[in-house]
């Protein structure tokens, strides 16, 4: 699979990454190379094989419904790029 520049731009947008025009060709090339490696999988017959999403067969452990956390807003917001009046601030969002 060779990725074209349109696809690279789409992936970049979904990933929230900027790709300069000058970088597009390089990304097309590099990502296509990785995909060629990945596509070796095609030689493998995986009919009726269950996908393995976890390395061991465990089932989800559930915790009891208790409030165990205390307010740490000050500590957490001390490392925020922009926070005011207890809120994290971002550039105005227009719906």
């Amino acid at each position, binding site marked *: 699979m060779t*990725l074209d520049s349109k*696809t*690279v731009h*789409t*992936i*970049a947008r*979904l*990933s*929230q*990454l*900027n790709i300069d025009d000058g970088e597009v060709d390089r*990304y097309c090339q*590099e*990502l296509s*190379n*990785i*995909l*060629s*490696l*990945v*596509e*070796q*999988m*095609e*030689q*493998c017959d*995986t009919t009726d*094989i*269950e*996908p*393995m*999403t*976890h*390395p*061991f067969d*465990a089932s*989800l*452990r559930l*915790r009891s419904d208790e409030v165990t956390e205390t307010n*740490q807003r000050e*500590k*957490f917001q*001390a*490392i*925020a*790029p*922009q926070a005011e009046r207890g809120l*994290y601030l*971002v*550039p*105005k*969002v227009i719906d």
Partner: protein
Amino acid sequence: MTIKTIKQHLADLKHGQVSSVELTSDYLARIASSELNAFISVNPETALAAAKHADEERAAGSDKPLLGLPIAHKDIFCIDGTRTTCGSKILENFTAPYTATVVNRLSDAGTISLGKTNMDEFAMGSSNENSYFGDVLNPWGNEVSRVPGGSSGGSAAAVAGQLVPASTGTDTGGSIRQPAAFCGLTGVKPSYGRCSRYGMIAFASSLDQAAPVTHTAEDAALLLNSMTGFDKRDSTSVEIENEDFTRDLNTPLDGLKIGLPKEFFGEGLDDEIAQRVADAIKVYESLGASVVDVSLPNAKLALAAYYVIAPAEASSNLARFDGVRYGYRTEHYDDLGQMYARTRSEGFGEEVKRRIMIGTYALSSGYYDAYYAKAQKVRRLISNDFDSLFQQVDVLIGPTTPTTAFTHGSRSDDPVAMYLNDIYTIPVNLAGLPAASIQCGLSSNGLPIGLQLITPYLQESRLLKVAHQFQLETDWHTLTAPSLEVA
């Protein structure tokens, strides 16, 4: 210069031959004069305060297993109040407001944290050349500068350079075993679920495991005794009793059945490495082990499956780095979209961006089945291969890496060539198994060669025994880097 193990340090501390403050000061001084760039942050004040406290505890009769022992943590582990960068510009000024479970456990056992070791950004790399904080030198690189391996390159270089007796690292596709091999050390990746992942910055959640890098298997067992254990904060943590991983170390290997997967000895393997591995097998035979040739037919697809699964998980795990709640935010933006994209484009390095993009593509509408679902099926087949082999043999042995430590810059232009470094280590992560790399010799140009050992799920005790018995019989693990001899 000779190596000094954790075991020896602990004995010295116990018998009062050295205090933790003296030991800590000694290692801090070595770090200060080192040019390996193995550390991203060093914390002398907190380390010395902790060492002082440890000495007081010992005087008061404490019997904590690792009391007063200086170690380092890979900069992927969050430590409350400490800068935690994950090798990335995006976390350059991130002071973690909480502590990883693995770090807490080791602190509770009495260790002193000297600082945070260098690493490939977000643990993505096999050479430590992807760190925002610069290349790390392999102490074994003599005339030319060689990579320490990655992603736990700083951890391995620090131990090999004797800047610290042991260090934590992580292993997602070989990130502890490959640097251990390149630096002549013992690196042990535990079974998936043994160590809590809470507080360890996620790269690929279904593959990541915390791992120690040490001089000996016995040291690794000592560290693992404290690092592992069930954590209710991690839903993938295995809920089993704590084990003493030193318990089987001295059990003889009589009757041990070793399997040699032929896929680990194929094209691309350096001849000298093949020879040293064969020599190591002979040592095992002399210890009473029998050897059979076996096959992992689907292992050849491990790299392909890994480069779908790991980037896919990473693309999602790294979405939280958006400049909103912590970490780097770009200086110039007009709107939210610009803020996001510029923050991430400026904050992430090339390899990280590549993997985010590959992962995003593999999960995107219309491609999920062909890539992600397919990779998870291949993963199942690889895991099944291991399961059936372990019906016949006790341990699988092969080389850790196809080559020895390469020179800086020699592979960084070709991502796929770089990925091939992990061809023997990756199948293990896909299956969630425990595995180790121990030194089994030197190449003709004096570079360490790693031997990989793999055992069934949760059979770390067997793994460590097989490693330890080799180290009782050989002295490769005691060799120190030539650069240290000069010093």
